[in-house]
């Protein structure tokens, strides 16, 4: 059952991902991308990471995609112009294919390290995923967390500098 569910989600994710790359209309691509994000959120839930799933929906599907769609609207972008660079598509697809072959081979053949942490599904359900994340983030990964603040600040300043009508 779970496997079937996984397969269906996978199918949806892949199809929507393909749609992202093939839709002529950027809006359609964006919507397909949102679909993919939802699929990923589903995966996260299946992987006992409900907090990540929530963040995924909120940050990605909610914030980033809104920003993107907003920009598409703002710039009033139409469908891709008709002239096709077929060689580019072919070459890109070939490289993409080889990327797939490589990466798939790597993940299949590679040895994932054996579990080394205390985390189990049981424990997550017991303690609560959010808390676990929070603990980690404010103890072991405090510095990266602080850096993100700078990162966001830079992004804000940068966005303002670049896009404000008049500075």
């Amino acid at each position, binding site marked *: 059952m779970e496997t079937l569910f996984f397969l269906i989600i996978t199918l949806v994710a892949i199809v929507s991902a393909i749609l992202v*790359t093939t839709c002529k209309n*950027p809006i359609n691509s964006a919507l397909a*991308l949102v679909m*993919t994000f939802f699929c990923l959120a589903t995966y996260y839930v299946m992987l006992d990471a409900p907090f990540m799933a929530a963040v995924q929906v909120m940050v990605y599907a909610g914030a980033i995609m809104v920003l993107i769609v907003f920009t598409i609207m703002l710039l009033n972008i139409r469908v891709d112009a008709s002239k096709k660079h077929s060689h580019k598509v072919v070459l890109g*697809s070939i490289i993409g294919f080889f990327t797939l072959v490589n990466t798939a081979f790597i993940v299949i053949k590679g040895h994932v390290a054996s579990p080394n*942490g205390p985390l189990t599904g049981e424990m997550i359900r017991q303690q609560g995923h959010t808390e676990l994340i929070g603990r980690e*983030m404010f103890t072991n990964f405090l510095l990266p967390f602080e850096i993100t603040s700078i990162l966001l600040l830079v*992004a804000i300043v940068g966005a303002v500098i670049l896009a404000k009508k008049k500075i």
Partner: protein
Amino acid sequence: MENVNSYLIVSAILFSIGTIGVLTRKNAIVIFMCVELMLNAVNLTFVALSRHLGNLDGQIFVFFVMTVAAAEAAVGLALMIAFYNNKESIDVEDVNIMKW
């Protein structure tokens, strides 16, 4: 729960599709979306691995990747707008004043 490898394969597929998108599309925003797709694929890898390994490092990483994605989105879209203001296009085929 599925084997971690299933997730990794899914993520590899998504990553490759993202790559193809970056390489084949002309619209800068769509390209950016494809990059986001790649990042998401990596995120899936992280979460799957994190679950498999039993530590939260990967998930924390995903958290930061999302932040980065947001920051990049902000700056990137601002750059596109700035470019659009000057060129009335965000087609990457128009982004080639400088070459050779």
